[in-house]
Every structure is written in structure tokens, then in C-alpha cells.
């Protein structure tokens, strides 16, 4: 496949002077550029200090095109699961209907844009909308032709019928003219009357042409015979019916007979007294010169092609199309007018050169929507030869990746892109990983949305990173609860430890816990880090104490120290917490438990003495600590005494 030499698109940046350099920075959806100078390091230079935000694609910001993206996304997802159980030859009707669904979405968008273009007062906006409409028109035109030729792949006979429909759909101004003519006082004398009749004939709409002719016949009773003859010729014009039992050969014979009959009528000058009818007769014979006289009515070379086929080669085979297409194009476009991209795209379609069609379209259209979806559909129809490339992705995937990457730059459309990436087996996953972590996490809700996408796809690194970002942000803003729950989600033990410490610090200074809901419902996630376990358990102690389950609370408190769950720095707080339990009338700590508490206290004071030896602490603080220890020792001793008595009493 030959590469077209494409000229790079030049975008002018205002206020960047010549002789300067242009610096840039990539963003997720745009590129920032600014004037700078790279050579003279340290040198001062006055210049523009503007930064320009350059965007690639404005289409995704159009609210109407957004509908196109949304709805085609549904069709796309449906297509990916089409008839996995259906044998491939039975899938064709499904593919054709999907193709039509895509086109109907294009049509709906076009309508909306058109209405908007008519209503808008702003001339610039109207032009822009008009441009979008004409692009969509072209897209639909190409898509429709591809549907006829590649997807439906109609055989000889039916092929022409499809092409006729295609031309009728896209050359619909006849109907507008008809309305105008019919609404006039005397339709048959309207200056557009014959244009309408001829246009109908050119599109093979014989019934409508006959109805129009009746009006003229009524006006000329003298020429009634002639009109009757034309009516007969038109009514007898054979059309192939794919659903009848008639074979193509039989049809061909009938058609030839009709053709000969028309020819006889022309030869014996049946219409010589009415130039219009004679002209129509010539058209029916497929007379080249007469057809070319209708250039204005035909409008395009491909209309000319279809009309010519209708009257000369109604049983044209798909393989012969390109020959007629080429010659019609040359005949229709005089040497002065150069063929335009649309012409060459259509010509390539008639030549069944699918790759050329896709390639030309992707060059001409700045939006990947069309090529991505069409190529995907054609690929599902098994119409693309495997184009395996050493860079990896095949054509379908390449285009889908481009399209989806574009969607990802949009603040809400990125969610559609996820499904497209999912259906790109080769690079879809990596692209999704790279793109999704760039989605701004403005709110917790948005973060949860992004997170769900990652979790559904087991993207563990992205899950971790998002949670970490959220945890860091929450911590910076002193929202400890949120920070803790995000770091639990991230399974980030180090961070959970850090936040737990902050919780405990807060408790030490304020005497209350914040975010009780969260801490009370930690469950198994408590095991993420030792400090977190301690935080959870310590809070549990407070709950038990509050509910007056003193012995349970006492047991838990003790185990926090003996099982080394509590950091030693916190032991004094724990022992102080034990004081009111020791002071209760009822004995709560047993003899053994009291011994253990005493052991803990001694261990703590011993290590504090050791620590104090190395770093000098202020005297006063020492005094407070000393009083606390004395108090504890006293309470412990008293508790031990009562516990011995009590336990002794029970024994006897």
C-alpha cells in the first residue's frame, strides 16, 4: 500500500516573533506553546510572555457531536458481541443493520446541527455548524456506499437497486423542488416542472415521473397519444426484483426487449413533436450526450454513474463497477476541475480498495470517529486482510486507539473510551493504564468512579496510585478519616501507620477520637499495619469501657501491652487508662493480670531511665511523670491486695 505524501497541518501561533524559539509542554488534551530563546543562556531578552493553549480537536467539545459519540458507543459495544454463536454467513443481516444504526445516528446529529445552524443568529457559529453538517453528510455518503458495496455486498441486479437508493438518499433536493412545483398555481407550467420530471427519471423514480407527466398531459389534450406512449414506456421499464423467482438472465432478456421498444419509439419519431419527451426517451436509452446535458440535475459524477448504469447496464457486476466509475468520473468532470478527496474516496470504494478508502478518510477528516467505527465494522465482517505490522497493532486497533485517546481528553467522554480500549487486544490495556491515571480526581466521587474502572480490570498499580494520591491529598488537608480509608484501600501499610500515629497524637492532645465511624468499622483491614491494629483495638477498649464491660476492657488493655501491639511510647497512656479500673470498688484486674501490669510499668520505667541517661529531659516534665508512676504503683499495690483477698476467699 503506497503512502500518500501528506502535508503537515500548519497552525499559526499569534505573537510569536520570528528569530525566537517556541517552547512547548504536552498536556493531556492540548499542548502549551510560548515564545522563548534557547541559545543565549542567562541573557536577558524582552519578548512576549504569552502562553498559548493549542488544542487538536474541537469536535469533542460540541454538545451535539457528543451525542454522536455516546450513541455510537452503544452500537460499538453491541457490535463487539454480535453473534459469537452465529455462523459467520448468517451474520450479514446483523452487520448491515448495525451499519444502518450507525448511519441513523449520523443522520440524527446532522439534523440537529442543521436546525441549530438555521436558528443561530451568529454568522460565525452558523458557518461552523454548516461545516460540521457537510462533514457529516460526506461521512454518511461514504459510509452508505461502503455499506452497499462491502458489508451488504449486493450481487449483480440487486447492486443497482442499492446504488439507486444511495443516490436518492443523497440527492434529495428533487423532493424540495417537487414541493415547490406542486404548490404553485399551475404546476405543469412551472419553470422547474421539466427539471423535476427529468430528475425523477434520472433517479429511476418512474412512478413519480409518471404522476408528474399526467399533469402535463392534461394540459395538452392534442398530444395525449404521445404522453400515453411515454407513460407506457415508463410503466413497462423493468426493475430487477431480488425476491422473485426471475433469474438475472430472464430479467436481462426482458430489459433488452424494453430497451429495443424505447429505441423504436425514438427511431420512428414518436416524440419528435415534444422535445422534452424526446429528451426523456433519449435518457431512457442511456444516451451519453443527453445524460451529460443533465449535469446540473445530476450534480455529481456518481449520480451520473448510477443513472448510466440504470439505463445501460442494469445487471452490472460488482467487479465491473470500477471500470464504469472511472470512465464516468472522467466524462463528468471536465479537464479543468480537479478531483477532490471525496471523489477519490468514492472511486476507491467502487474499486473495492478498502484500505485506500480508510486511509484517505483518515487523512481528510480530522476526526477519528468515522474511520475507527467503519474500520471496526469492516473488520468484524472479515473484510480487512490481516495487516500485521511489526509496530504491533493492526489497522483496526490503531484507529480505535487514536479515537479513544481523543475521547480521554474530555472530562466525561473518557468513560466511553474505556470500552474501546477494552476491545483492543494488543495495546488497549497499556493505553488505558496510561490514560486513566491522568484523569483528574477533582472530587472523591470522581476518584471512586475512576477507581471502579481500574478495579474491574484488576489494574492494581493504578488502583494503588489513585488511592495513594487521594490519601496524600486528604492528609495534607488534615482530613485524617478520609486519608486513612484511602490508604486502607491502597493497602499502603506505611501510610496507614503514619495516619494512625496522627490519630493517636490527636487523641493524646485532645482526649477524643475523630472519625469514630471509620475506626469502629475497620474490621479485618485493621491488620494492614500494626499501628492501625493498635488504633482499632485501643478504640475498642474505649468502647468497652464506655459500655461498662470493665473486665473485658481490662483484658483488652492488658493484651495491647503484653502482645506488644501498643508502641511503648503509648504505654504510659494505657497504664493511666488502667487507673480508673484499678480504683473501681469491684476487683477487675486479677492477681495475675495485676502482676503483668506491674511488669509492664517496670519495663517502661526501666527503658525510660535508660533513655533519660542518653538525652537530658527537662526536670519539671520528669516530676510529672514521676508522680504518675507513683500513683500507678500505689493503685497497683492496692488492687493486688484486694485481688489476693478476693481470690483467696473464693478458693476456700
Amino acid at each position, binding site marked *: 500500500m503506497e503512502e500518500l505524501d501528506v502535508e503537515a497541518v500548519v497552525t499559526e501561533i499569534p505573537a510569536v516573533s520570528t528569530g525566537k524559539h517556541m517552547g512547548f509542554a504536552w498536556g493531556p488534551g492540548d499542548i502549551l506553546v510560548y515564545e522563548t530563546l534557547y541559545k543565549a543562556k542567562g541573557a536577558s531578552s524582552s519578548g512576549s*510572555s504569552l502562553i498559548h493553549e493549542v488544542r487538536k480537536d474541537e469536535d469533542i467539545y460540541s454538545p451535539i457531536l457528543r451525542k454522536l459519540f455516546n450513541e455510537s458507543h452503544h452500537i460499538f459495544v453491541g457490535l463487539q458481541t454480535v453473534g459469537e454463536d452465529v455462523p459467520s454467513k448468517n451474520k450479514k443481516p446483523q452487520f448491515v443493520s448495525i451499519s444502518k444504526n450507525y448511519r441513523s445516528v449520523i443522520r440524527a446529529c446532522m439534523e440537529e446541527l*442543521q436546525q441549530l445552524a438555521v436558528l443561530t443568529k451568529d454568522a460565525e457559529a452558523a458557518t461552523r455548524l454548516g461545516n460540521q453538517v457537510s462533514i457529516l453528510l460526506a461521512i454518511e455518503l461514504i459510509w452508505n456506499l461502503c455499506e452497499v458495496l462491502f458489508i451488504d455486498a449486493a450481487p449483480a441486479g440487486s447492486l443497482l437497486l442499492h446504488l439507486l437508493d444511495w443516490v436518492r438518499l443523497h440527492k434529495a433536493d428533487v*423532493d424540495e423542488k417537487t414541493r415547490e412545483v406542486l404548490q404553485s398555481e399551475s404546476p405543469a407550467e412551472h419553470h422547474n416542472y421539466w427539471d423535476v420530471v427529468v430528475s425523477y427519471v434520472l433517479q429511476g423514480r418512474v412512478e413519480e415521473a409518471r404522476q408528474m407527466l399526467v399533469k402535463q398531459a392534461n394540459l395538452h389534450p392534442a398530444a395525449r397519444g404521445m404522453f400515453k406512449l411515454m407513460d407506457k414506456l415508463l410503466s413497462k421499464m423493468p426493475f430487477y426484483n431480488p425476491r422473485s423467482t426471475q433469474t438475472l438472465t430472464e430479467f436481462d432478456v426482458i430489459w433488452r426487449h424494453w430497451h429495443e421498444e424505447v429505441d423504436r419509439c425514438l427511431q420512428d419519431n414518436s416524440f419528435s413533436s415534444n422535445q422534452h419527451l424526446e429528451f426523456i426517451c433519449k435518457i431512457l436509452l442511456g444516451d451519453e450526450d443527453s445524460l451529460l446535458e443533465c449535469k446540473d440535475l445530476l450534480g455529481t459524477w456518481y449520480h451520473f454513474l448510477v443513472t448510466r448504469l440504470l439505463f445501460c447496464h442494469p445487471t452490472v457486476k460488482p467487479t465491473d463497477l470500477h471500470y464504469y466509475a472511472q470512465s464516468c468520473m472522467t466524462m463528468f468532470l471536465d479537464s479543468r476541475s480537479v478531483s477532490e478527496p471525496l471523489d477519490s474516496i468514492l472511486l476507491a470504494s467502487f474499486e473495492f480498495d478498502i484500505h485506500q478508502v480508510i486511509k484517505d478518510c483518515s487523512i481528510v477528516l480530522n476526526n477519528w470517529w468515522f474511520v475507527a467505527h467503519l474500520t471496526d465494522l469492516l473488520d468484524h465482517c472479515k473484510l480487512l486482510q490481516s495487516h500485521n505490522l511489526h509496530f504491533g497493532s493492526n489497522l483496526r486497533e490503531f484507529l480505535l486507539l487514536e479515537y479513544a485517546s481523543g475521547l480521554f481528553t474530555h472530562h466525561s467522554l473518557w468513560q466511553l473510551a474505556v470500552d474501546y480500549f477494552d476491545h483492543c487486544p494488543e495495546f488497549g490495556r497499556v493505553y488505558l493504564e496510561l490514560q486513566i491515571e*491522568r484523569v483528574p480526581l477533582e472530587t472523591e466521587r470522581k476518584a471512586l468512579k475512576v477507581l471502579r474502572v481500574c478495579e474491574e480490570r484488576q489494574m492494581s498499580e493504578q488502583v494503588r496510585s489513585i488511592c495513594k494520591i487521594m490519601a496524600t491529598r486528604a492528609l495534607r488537608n488534615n482530613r485524617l478519616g478520609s486519608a486513612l480509608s484511602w490508604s486502607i484501600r491502597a493497602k499502603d501499610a506505611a501510610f496507614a501507620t503514619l495516619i494512625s500515629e496522627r490519630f493517636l497524637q490527636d487523641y493524646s492532645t485532645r482526649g477524643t477520637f475523630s472519625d469514630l465511624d471509620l475506626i469502629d468499622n475497620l474490621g479485618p483491614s485493621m491488620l494492614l499495619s500494626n499501628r492501625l491494629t493498635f488504633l482499632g483495638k485501643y478504640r475498642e477498649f474505649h468502647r468497652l469501657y464506655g459500655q461498662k464491660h470493665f473486665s473485658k476492657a481490662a483484658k483488652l488493655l492488658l493484651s495491647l501491652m503484653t502482645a506488644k501491639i501498643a508502641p511503648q511510647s503509648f504505654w504510659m497512656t494505657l497504664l493511666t487508662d488502667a487507673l480508673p479500673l484499678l480504683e473501681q470498688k469491684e476487683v477487675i484486674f486479677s492477681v495475675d493480670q495485676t502482676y503483668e501490669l506491674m511488669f509492664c510499668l517496670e519495663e517502661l520505667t526501666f527503658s525510660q531511665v535508660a533513655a533519660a541517661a542518653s538525652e537530658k529531659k527537662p526536670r519539671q516534665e520528669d516530676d510529672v511523670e514521676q508522680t504518675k508512676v507513683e500513683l500507678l504503683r500505689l493503685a497497683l499495690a492496692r488492687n493486688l491486695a484486694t485481688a489476693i483477698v478476693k481470690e483467696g476467699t473464693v478458693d476456700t
Partner: protein
Amino acid sequence: MFVARSITADHKDLIHDVSYDFHGRRMATCSSDQSVKVWDKSENGDWHCTASWKTHSGSVWRVTWAHPEFGQVLASCSFDRTAAVWEEIVGESNDKQRGLSHWIKRTTLVDSRTSVTDVKFAPKHMGLMLTTCSADGVVRIYEAPDVMNLSQWSLQHEISCKLSCSCLSWNPSSSRVHPSMFAVGSDDINVTCSGKVQIYEYNENTRKYAKAETLMTVTDAVHDIAFAPNLGRSFHILAIATKDVRLFKLVPIRKESTSTGPTKFEVQIVAQFDNHNSQVWRVSWNITSTLLASSGDDGCVRLWKANYMDNWKCTGILKGDGSPLTGSSGQPTAMSTVLGSSIQTSQNALNGISAGSSLKALYISAHSPNHSHIHTPVGQDCHARR
């Protein structure tokens, strides 16, 4: 491509670098006026300067963001021979209301004896690490062991490259697949014959960075260098800004299990473009490495893209119009003219109808009674939704 908006940066001197944060919601700018500015994007897409402060006592060459996992952290490097780390602190609420943010200096890295030419954070999986390179030919790798305390940075590695360094780039792909790796470029004009791009790789055994490769074919001054995101490929792609734009593919050669030396690479040139006519100053990849941008002496930014056949082409040029700003923000390229005039014709046909009749009417009447079976599903779908 079109200019969506222009922002008055209001730097008193030349802007040297503009850097987007990870999510593209903030940007930082730095300038010869020795200051750094931070900008935040509002809901409607407008940029607001939320902080501006003097950062160095010389031109600030580069400014860069740490990954948001580490908070809101910036690093800058300057002609004043230092690099600095800045952290945003959550200020008083009335500051927030006025749309201002507070950045405080966490550390100044003063190890370089010459201008610090580039500063980059290492990939996030390595922790919070900052790398500088300087005109004295040394690459320094610093680490913040405690991410909650950014005032402590320890110099972990000092790698002498023997050539004055101008730029460096970390290989962004994860170390699970291969050792940590960075490339450093030199614009040394005193040494003419040697390779100006060196690749260094971390060795687990020696716990040091060792030179894995020198790109011997690049002998002219190198101004910028950029590894492409890996995309799970078995090879690495490196873009280089020198007297032209060059793309290299580094294919690791499988080494014997006993070997402990650095990975050897097969170096292949993928593309070489001299469209900038002379020196190229910057190269940089977009997120998925499907586009490479370069800036050169022709005053243009050029965009390079590989098609699905892996052919690299210039697909876009951003070019100064050389005139002062006239108020117009630039026009989107006229795509319809590209398609051809026949489409214009059909559009005229469309324009001829009133909004009321519209395409729906056109469409339905286009069905001749003979073949109405063909297109019925079209239109049905879209009208049913109304």
C-alpha cells in the same frame, strides 16, 4: 489544531520552561526573571495564577512536578548552581478564598559547582527521588527517605559523565521489567568526536549506576532527550534533540545469567528528521507516545507521528505568525474545504430547506415505493428516541 486560549504569563523576562502537573490541571512556569509561577485551571478552563515567587538568584532553566502521590511538590534548577524543592502548604482559608496558594522551600541542593541544567523526578515506583545534571558533567540523584519530611534529601549517587551535561531523561517504565535507567545528553562543544548521549543503568549488586551504552553516532551537541513510555514493548525508544531530531530504538541483548555487568543494547536508528534546518532544542512525548513534539531553530514546534505501518511523519507544525497579537485566537482548520465542493453542493441543498422540514423529511421522501425495504432501520432508531 487551533489556539483555544492565550494566557498572559506576566513574567518580566524570557520564559524558559512550562510544565504541566500529572493530571493537567495545574502548570508551573519559570523564567529568567528568577521566579516560578503556579497556575490552576478553573472549571471553565481558564488559567489563574495562584502563586508567584522568587526562587533563585539566576535564570530558572527548568521546573518540574513530582507525582501527586507525593503531594504538591515542585523542583526547579537554575543558573545560580542550585536546584530547589518546593512544597505547597495548605494555608489559611482566606488565602484559598482569594485563590492563592503557599509554596515553601523545602531544600536547596547546592552540590553543583556550575549551572544546573536539568532537573527531573525519577519514576514514582523508585520513591521520591530527584535527579539533577549540571554543566560540570555530574548527574546527582537525591532521595527523600521520609516523604512527610521533604526538608531532608540525601545525595544517593554522584555520576560523573566527563562531559558537560545539558539534559537527562528517566526511562519511565517500571523496574520490575528491567533495571532503572536514565539517559543523559551533553552539549559539550570542546569534545567533538565522542558520543554525546550516555545511558546509565542501576546495578542491584553494586548498588550503583553504571554506564550501559554510549550512542557513538550522536557526536553533535545534544540539547534534549526523552524516553518514550514503554507500552509493554521489549525495547526502549529514545528521542534526541541535536542538530536534527533522532529516534533510537534500544533493544536489550539477552545477557547470560552469570554476567553481572550492565545490559548491552543493540542501538537502531528509527528516524532522523532535519526539518528544523538547524539545532533542535526540545523533544517530548505525549502520554501514550503516539506523538513526539520537537522545537528547533526554525522557530516552529513540529509534531511527529508514526502511522500503523510505523512510518514516522511530520503531521503538524505550530508556527509563529511573527506579528503581534491581533485579538483573534486563531481559527480551526477548515476541514470542509478539504473534502471538496461537491459536499458544499449537497450542503447548499440542505441549507435550502427550513429547519422544520429538515433531513428527516428529506430522508423519508427519498424512499421510492419500489425499494422501501432497504433503509427502513435507518432513521427509525433516531426518531424513536425523540
